[in-house]
Every structure is written in C-alpha cells, then in structure tokens.
C-alpha cells in the first residue's frame, strides 16, 4: 500500500495543483477571508500611535512593531492552512467518502497532498506582503539571527502538521456525529483568540498567556511568527519547537485513532 501510494504521489500533487488553479476564485475568496491580520494591524497601530503598548513580558510595541508582526501573521496563515476537516465532513455526509476509500491510496494521504498542492498558489499570494515586509522599515523588527531563520522552516512545517491533523481529527469525528462541523467552528474561534492571530500573545493578561503556552493554537501561528519577528533566541526557541512537535505527534496519533475507529462504522449512503 505504501509503495503504491508513493508511486502515485507525483500524479496526486499534479492533480491537486491543477485543482487549485481551477478553483482560483474560491481561493481568492479564501484569501479575502484571511485579511483579519491586516484589519488588526490598522487597529493596533491606531492604538499604539500616541503611546507604545507594553506587553506582559515588558516588550514595548510601537506602530512598526505591530506592522511587522501582523504582516508576518498574514504570511504564516497562508502557509499553514488546511481544510481537510470540511472536505471530510461533506464527503461523510454525502456518502462520497466511499469513492475515496475505493482508491488504492491511503485516504489521509490524498487529503494531505490535496491540501499541500494548493500551497504554491498561496505562497504566490504572500509574495507582495513579503516584499512590503522586507522593503519598508518593518524589516527592523525581524529577527537578525540566522540561526533562528534556520529553525523557522521547522516551525512552519510543525504549524501545518498541527493544522492538518487537527482537521483530520475533527473531520473524522463526523463519522460519529452530525455536528462535527460545529466543533470545527469552536476550534476556529479558540484558534483566533489563542494563536496570536488577533494580537501578540504577550498582550494577554498573564494567566491567559500561560494558558496559551499549553494550548496547540500558539504553535500554529504564534511560534513561527515569533521566530520571524525576533522574539526568541536560538536557545529559547528550541524548547518551544519541542512543544510544538509534541502537539503535532499527539494530534497525529489521536486523529489516526479516531479515523480508524470511525471508518469501521462508515456504511456510506443508505447503509
């Protein structure tokens, strides 16, 4: 099964990429719905215009610090996105999951590749933002330590793995219950608050910052962004990276367990 899946991989990637091109309107709509960091950027720069905002750790946030933070958030959000949960929900409800199961490739692999194949187009969307980030004085608030930039790709991949397998776990729950899509909404609402998507996490009251350290959401967006914006040194980033991958591993195990048990119950349509 694994050898066969690997041989099919190039074709799967190609199909996924062509699909992302075919549904480009859909992707543009999606990109528009992720412009929240830009809205938050204007809000926070308005708040910090007269007096810089001081975070829990003593860091002082001026307007350009907010600009580089939220531009980084926008970029990271494009690159760690996954939507397998919704796909699974619809396919389970409509019985079309059966088609996917018939293919001689592991279904989770085809979801994963489908989600990854859209990344080139999303990366293209981030290009202008990257240019702005590096060409304006927002650059001053980026990390100057190249060791940290070496860790950045790992944090980004870790963020994607958490997003994808959380999606799989919640999507697989639709094999058990009708309302898994609502769980997805709950996950998203918590994600918006605790990931650093709406504000840098050190602006939280202390007890919420502490909570955010233990929740998975910060490792989806917060950690990669903190690496970009130079919050961490190489040494202080490593334990956080370890925590991120611990979450990733836990979600992989949990989602596979839910998927396997749920699949045993799946009887397609009219079963």
């Amino acid at each position, binding site marked *: 099964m694994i050898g066969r899946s690997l041989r099919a991989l190039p074709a799967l990637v190609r199909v996924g990429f062509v699909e992302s091109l075919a549904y480009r309107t859909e992707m543009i709509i999606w990109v*528009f719905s*992720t412009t*929240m960091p830009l809205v938050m950027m204007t809000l926070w720069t308005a708040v910090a215009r007269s007096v810089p905002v001081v975070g829990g750790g003593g860091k002082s946030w001026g307007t350009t610090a907010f600009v580089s933070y939220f531009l980084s958030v926008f970029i990271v959000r494009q690159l760690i996105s996954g939507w397998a949960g919704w796909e699974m929900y619809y396919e389970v409800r409509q019985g079309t999951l059966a088609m996917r199961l018939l293919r001689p490739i592991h279904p989770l692999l085809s979801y994963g590749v489908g989600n990854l194949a859209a990344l080139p187009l999303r990366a293209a969307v981030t290009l202008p933002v990257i240019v702005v980030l590096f060409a304006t004085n927002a650059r001053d608030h980026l990390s100057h330590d190249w060791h940290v930039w070496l860790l950045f790709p790992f944090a980004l991949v870790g963020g994607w793995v958490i997003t994808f397998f959380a999606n799989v776990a919640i999507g697989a729950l639709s094999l058990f219950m009708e*309302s898994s899509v609502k769980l997805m909404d709950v996950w998203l609402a918590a994600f*918006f608050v605790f990931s650093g998507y*709406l504000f840098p996490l050190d602006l939280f009251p202390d007890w919420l910052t502490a909570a955010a350290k233990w929740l998975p959401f910060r490792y989806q967006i917060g950690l990669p962004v903190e690496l970009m914006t130079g919050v961490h040194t190489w040494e202080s980033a490593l334990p956080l990276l370890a925590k991120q991958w611990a979450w990733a591993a836990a979600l992989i195990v949990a989602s596979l367990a839910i998927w396997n048990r749920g699949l045993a119950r799946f009887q397609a349509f009219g079963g």
Partner: protein
Amino acid sequence: MGRYLGLLSRQLRTSALLAAQYRWDFVVDGVVSLFFMATAIVPLFVVYGDASRPGIPGWSFGEALVVTGWFILLQGVLDGAVNPGLQAVIDHIRKGTLDFVLLKPADAQFLVSTARFQLWRVTSVVVALVVFVIAFSRVGRAPAVLDVAASLVLLVSATLLLYSLWILIVSAAFFVVKVDNLTYLFSSIFDAARWPSSVFPNVLRFVFTFVVPLALMTTFPAEAMLGRLESSALVGSLLGTLVFAAIARWTWLKAIGHYTSAGG
C-alpha cells in the same frame, strides 16, 4: 401579505422541530453560542488591558463595550437567521435542487431567506443586553430614551443591511458555483464590525461605511445609544440602507435569471 406571514410561521416551526429532533446538536449549539460570545468580548479586554493602556483613541472602555454589545447582537442575527439560509441556498445551487424552490408558488427570495433558522442564537439578545448594562455602568449614566429609540431604528436598518449583503452574496453563488467558503468570508469580514469604525484609516473607513456598511451596523447604533450620532448621519444611513436593499433585490432578480439548473 397574510399568506407570507403564515409561511414564515410555518418555516419557523420547521426550524424549531428540526432543532428539537437532533437533541445532541441542540446542546452543542447552545455551548457553541456561549463560547462565541465569550470570544467576541476577549479582544476588547486585550486592547484595553489594565489601566495603563491608552485603548482606542476617542473611545473609553465603556463606550467601546457598547459597540461590542451591538456586535454580539448582530452576530446573533447573522448566525441565527442569515448564515444557515445562505448555506442552504449554496447547497441548492451546487446540486441543482434550487428548481424545487423556484417551482413553488411563492417568491423564491422569501422562501430561501426563511428556510433555516438557528433558534439558539436568540440568547445573544440576552447577552447583548447584559453587555449594554455593564457598558453604561462603566460610562456612568443611563442612555436617554430618545437615543435608545434611535438605536432601535438603526437595529432594524442594520438587520436589513445584513440581509441585503446576504442576498448579494447568494447572488454571487449563481455565477461562481464552488463557493463553500462564502459564509466563512462573510463572517470573517463581519468580524471587523466589532471595533469602532474610527480606528480604521480613511480608505478602510470609507469601504466599511459605503461599500460593506459594517459601520452602519455596529458603530452607528452604538453612537446613537451614547447620544452622539448626528441626526444627518441617522437619516443618511436609513436612506443608504433602502438603496442598498433595492440594489440587492435587483441583483437577486438578475442572478436568478442566470440560473441554469444542473447540467445547464
């Protein structure tokens, strides 16, 4: 008119029966509603933080909380009455089953608009009222009766605006069919309405006032309640709402003419 009122009560009853049928869902829905309202308030607390933070220029914490109250109220309208129907129409269009709706001897726009309600979201009215009480105790005075009346008028116009935006988005679904994430787009743009519109730079404020009139839905009613909305703004927003609603209806009629059913 009487016939449509009868239809509306039928549709509402169906929604209630559906909600009661899936009991587990009903409980989950309730928890989700409360959770959403909690997450609506958190960002404001972060912006104002402790007393040392300057907060949003021109808005005290209590005043900004009034805007949040309006945001919770309208989010309730959006999630309770607007989004479920929107999802239903998009499914209809994709599967081609909209034909069955069009064949029925009533206005199609009315039928799809009232097809589904999330009755749980009524709770957001209660939560919004609590938020208003807290907000005005922070401001240190009660709102004037006339100001409350003005804000209620604006509530009606805000609902109409939200509904018109919804119709415009549904119309878009006739042209670009794979639009699962339209509701998601709608909700995430609406998220910007939780902040007083004065925090946005001029271009964005223009967009949020005249193109996607979020300011008219939360900031204007909040200012009316605080007694600082000018009457010209009140009249202007009412007229604007009517124009917006007319455009939405016209677009709907155009879009439905474009509909080719499945395999068309």
